[in-house]
Each structure stands twice: as C-alpha cells, then as structure tokens.
C-alpha cells in the first residue's frame, strides 16, 4: 500500500509538486496522468526515496520512506522511465545484479530469473549483451529487473515511452499480471488510452497539482457527458466566444485565431447551430473533430490545454 500525504517538493522558488495526496491499495493499478513536466517523475522520486519531500510524508506498507528508507525500499520495485540497465551485460547478468541488490540469493534468485525471463519473453536471448536488443526488448528487461524480487509495491514511470505497439500491449499485460498477484502498482503516463484501459483509479496532475482524482467513472462524470468539439479555421477569438453564447450549454475551453475547443452535450446534433453562429461573425471553419467524453477531454476541460502539449 502506498500512502502519499500532502507531499510538496520545491527547488528554490519552483514548486515541482504541490501538496499531492493519494493512496493506492494492494492489487490496484493507480495511475498518475499528466503532461510532461507535470510533476509525475518528481512524485515517483519522492515515493522511491530518491528525493526528500520538502513537506509531507510517504509511507510504503506503513514504512516512512524518509525515516525508514531501507525498510521501505525493500518493499519497492522501481521501473524507471529510462532504460536503467548495463548495456554491456547480458539480460541474465543484469537480472543477477539487480536481484542481488535486493538481497536475493540462489536458488530463489535463479528461479525468479527463469520466471521473469519467461514472463517477458526473453528466455531465448538471455545470454546476449543487451546492446543487441531492440527497444521493446530492453523495455521488457527494464520491467523484469523491477519485479525480479516480487515487490509489494511497484512504481512504473512511463514504462512504454518509445515502445512499438506490440511491445506496449505486452508490457501492459505484464503490468496487469503483476497487479493480479496482489502488487500495488503506481503507473505514471501521459498516454490517455493507457490510463483508461489499465488503471482502476487515477489522479490527473498538472503543474505539480492533482486537478482531479477518482475512478474512471467518477472522472468521466465530471464531464457530465459533454463531447469535445475542436474547430480549426480562421477566427476572431472574442467575436467567436460572443457568438457561441447563443448556443445552449456550450463551454469554450480554448479560443485562438486558428482553433476553437468547445465542450457541449450532443455536439453532433448541434453542429448546424454552431456553424451558423460562427458564420454570422465572419469565422471560417475548415475542419472539425468530435471526441466522446474521455480523460483527454476532461484534461482539456480542466486545464484548457491538450495533454500532450
């Protein structure tokens, strides 16, 4: 179990994490969703004991990561964002080393190495130096080194960045399987679809703050079944905003000279009214994009910007 209690991390005047709180239970995959620079990795750093929070507390299965660092880290498995492995060693040698850092010994270590190699599909290439591996294989080995010691809590920091779709599916299956064994998984990502398909609960983070948290259903409810409508073209933002006030239940999330982002219920049915209102103020609509309620539309609704910005 992870308990994050109002942690704050500052670097001089810069607030990287601002009083973030959440808990994640055994067997649960808890997602931290946010754009790059939102504070996800800093949060992971505080949880793993790499960074000392400026304020607040983190407990891993009841152990405070600052005061009982070693005990807390014994329960943790960390899969960092970068491939944190020795390139010149083989998969087997890497697993032996990282298992050894967790205090594992033979025969358990040997048994676990066989298990994780089979699990990640790397058994056939176990003795090759990993510099000969593809990106996806390295990602899987990176994951394998994080779970070699069967941690109670697993921290995954954007583990699918730069991975081909096939490897991504395989990695996500591995994460689900790990949670299925009762491991508490904290998963950070800026990929909306990953968070939607993988996580039971989520916290959406931006600029170091949790701007929304809950189950997928709870978060979607915040959108009140509103669709997200993106209109591209040529606009005068103020005039467009004024014109759209005539359309019921519409909310302008973003307006600039080339893009309007709107939130409204039953958008497809109300498109003619929107086009008419905009045409009346001289706007020229060249493209439309309609999105059903999703985490991405929620993020845009809450922050006024795209998740991948």
């Amino acid at each position, binding site marked *: 179990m992870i308990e994050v209690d109002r942690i704050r991390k500052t670097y001089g005047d810069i607030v990287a994490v601002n009083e973030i709180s959440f808990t994640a239970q055994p067997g649960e995959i808890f997602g931290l969703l946010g754009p790059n620079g939102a504070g996800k990795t800093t949060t992971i*750093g505080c949880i*793993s*004991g*790499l*960074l000392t929070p400026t304020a607040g507390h983190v407990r891993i299965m009841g152990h405070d990561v600052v005061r009982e660092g*070693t005990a807390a*880290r*014994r329960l*943790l498995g*960390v899969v*960092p964002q*970068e*491939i*944190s*492995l*020795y*390139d*010149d*060693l083989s998969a087997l*040698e890497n697993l*032996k*080393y*990282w298992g*050894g*850092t*967790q*205090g594992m*010994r033979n025969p358990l270590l040997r048994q676990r190495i066989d298990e994780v190699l089979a699990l990640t599909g790397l058994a056939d290439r176990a003795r090759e*130096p990993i510099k000969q591996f593809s990106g996806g294989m390295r990602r899987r080995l990176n994951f394998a*080194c994080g779970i070699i010691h069967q941690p109670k809590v697993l921290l995954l920091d954007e583990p699918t960045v730069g991975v081909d779709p096939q490897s991504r599916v395989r990695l996500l299956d591995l994460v689900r399987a790990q949670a299925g064994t009762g491991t508490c998984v904290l998963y950070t990502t800026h990929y909306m679809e990953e968070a939607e398909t993988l996580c039971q609960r989520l916290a959406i983070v931006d600029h170091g703050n949790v701007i929304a948290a809950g189950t997928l259903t709870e978060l979607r409810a915040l959108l009140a079944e509103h669709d997200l409508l993106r209109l591209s073209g040529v606009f005068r933002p103020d005039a467009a905003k004024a014109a759209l006030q005539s359309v019921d239940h519409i909310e302008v999330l973003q307006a600039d000279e080339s893009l309007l982002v709107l939130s409204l219920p039953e958008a497809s049915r109300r498109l003619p009214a929107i086009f008419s209102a905009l045409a009346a103020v001289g706007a020229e609509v060249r493209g439309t994009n309609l999105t059903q309620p999703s985490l991405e539309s929620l993020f845009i609704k809450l922050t006024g910007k795209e998740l991948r910005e």
Partner: protein
Amino acid sequence: MRFLAVSLRKDWGRVRRDPSQFAIALGIPLVLAVLMSLVFGRTPAAPHGRLLMADEDNTIASARFLDGFHRDPLRTMITIEKVTREPGRARIDRGDGSAFLLIPKGLQKAFLMNLPYQLELYTNPSERILPQMIRETLSITVEAAGHFRRASGTPLIEVENVAVHEAAKPARSFAAVFLPSMLFMSLLFLASSSAVDIWKERTQGTLRRIAASPVSMVSYLAARVVFVALVYAAVALVGLVAAQRLAAMPVPNLPAAVLWITFVGTVFYLLFLWITVLPATQRAASVLANLTIFPLAMLGGCFFPFEWMPGWMVSVGRLTPNGWALSEFKTMLDNSVDVAHLAVSTAVLAAFGAVAFVFVARRIRRGFAV
C-alpha cells in the same frame, strides 16, 4: 559483504564484455617501460641535478666556496638548494639530489688560522656524471684556496681533501629514474578515467536505480572502490614487473610496492571521484578533472622527476598527494623506507581518501544520482 560480491561479479562481467579499458590500464605502464628501455636503454642519466648544501659555517669564506657552481656551465646544470644537516643527509640517502655538501662550522677560522679542516660530500650513487663534476669543482676550489694562502705569504692552509662518501647503492638507469614518475602519471590518468565512469552510471540511470534499492550509497561506493583497487593492483604488478625486467628499475620489495601503488591509486580515484561529482554536467566534470590532473602531474613529479625540478617547485610538489606518494614510492625503490615517515604518509593519504569517500557518498545520495 554480500553486495560486494554481487557488485564485483557485475564489474568483472563488464570488463569481460568490454576489456579495452582494462587492457589500456594494464598496457600504459607496460608500453612506458618498453619505450623507456628502447629510448634510453640502461645508460646513466644525462647531467642535470641538484646539490644539497648545508652551510654550518655561514661566513664569507663559506659563501665564496660555492662560487664555482654559479658559473657556466655548472650554473645551468646544477641547482643549489640550501638545507640543514639532518634533512640533507636523509634526502641524499633517499637519492633525492645529486650530492649533499656539508660545510661544518670553522671553515673561515681554519682558513685564517691555518687549522686542519674537512668538508663532507655525500654523493648519489645512482648518478655518475654530476657527482663527479661536483667533486672536481670542490677539489679545484680547495686547491685555489691553498694557492691564495701561499701568495699572501702566510702558511699554507691545510684544508684536507674533500671527504667523499658514497652509499653502497646500485646505479639506476635513466629509464629507472623516469619510470616511477611515468607510472604515477598513468595512475593519475587511470584514476581520472575510472572516476568519470560514475557519469556513465548516472546517464544510463543505473545509479538512480541503485539509489532506489535497499543498497546504501556507502555500500555501493565501497564496492566500486574495491574493484578499482583490484584494477590498480593488477596495473601495479604488470607495471613493476615490466619496469624491473625491461628498464632495470630496482624493486627490492615487489609486494610492498604493489600494495603502495594500489593504496595510492585508490586514493587518487577517490580524489577524482570527488572532483567529478561536483559539477552539474559531465562536460564540466571532464574539464575540471583535466584542469586538476595536469598541474598535479606537473608539480607532483609525474611529468618530470623531482630531480629535474627547481627547488621551490619540489617543495610545493612534495605537498601534493601524488608528489607525497611518489616520494615514498622512491624510498621503497631505494630500500631506504623510514617506517615512521611512511606511517604518517599512509595516515594522511588514508584520511584524505576517507574524506573524499564520505563527500562522494553524500553527494550521490543527495542529488547526483537523480
């Protein structure tokens, strides 16, 4: 201890997969020994050195006595360094200098009152030409003083011929004079390149992963230090055996010499590790390491042997960690180790290494790893 074995196995695995760096480390002293022996063979060193002089008379007569050394060509070949009796003896016994001239109290009085008098000259047996020139110059000076007394009509001063002492030490070849310096220079470069490896660990994220594991930074660093010490031991063994066989460098106690090089190499590694983890970027770390290594090598007798350096520079150079360690190493080669002095040197270098170790462990834990 368990992690030490795990870490050593990992480091040895990395060496096996990519042996080039280890081979270079072993190869540098070997190549130096071969080149030195090819270039200089086993012939004696070229004439240039230092005369240690203790003037206990401290009179006009004693001052005039050294005039011969202030004229060309001796002026450019011999640097005179004033010392006192005991340190002078100790230094010449260690082979530090071409000769040591002791002018006991009473020279001027003997000259004026026609009393018997004796100068003492201690020569370095590892050098041939310079001690001979110094001896000849002193003999001429003594003879000239005798003629002066005859011309002035007073009785001839009976200044006895200079008493020359020479310790029974084997002569050293030019290569043997240079090799300890070269060996220590390669130790410095090896320390610097080994230390920069911490940046590789940081860049590839393995340091961060270690920091998030139950392994303490002290354990991690200690394991690294042990591995580096093993590398130094191998380098020392290869280098010293090559120096013995190829360049006729005397190594009376090989295990002690290997142990010393291993110890000081590890201290150098910690020093460079300290320097390397200070800056915020790898580039800045490399620049800082280079800015440190060259003055250290120059001053500390690693580019040029102390025997070739001006006195003031030798005084400064002996205070650098490598200069200090090199001086002790030369006493080992000369089989003239002062145990008390060696104990002090070991304690100082060990303390220096310990401070660097603590700093580096703290620095890695508090930000460098992240």
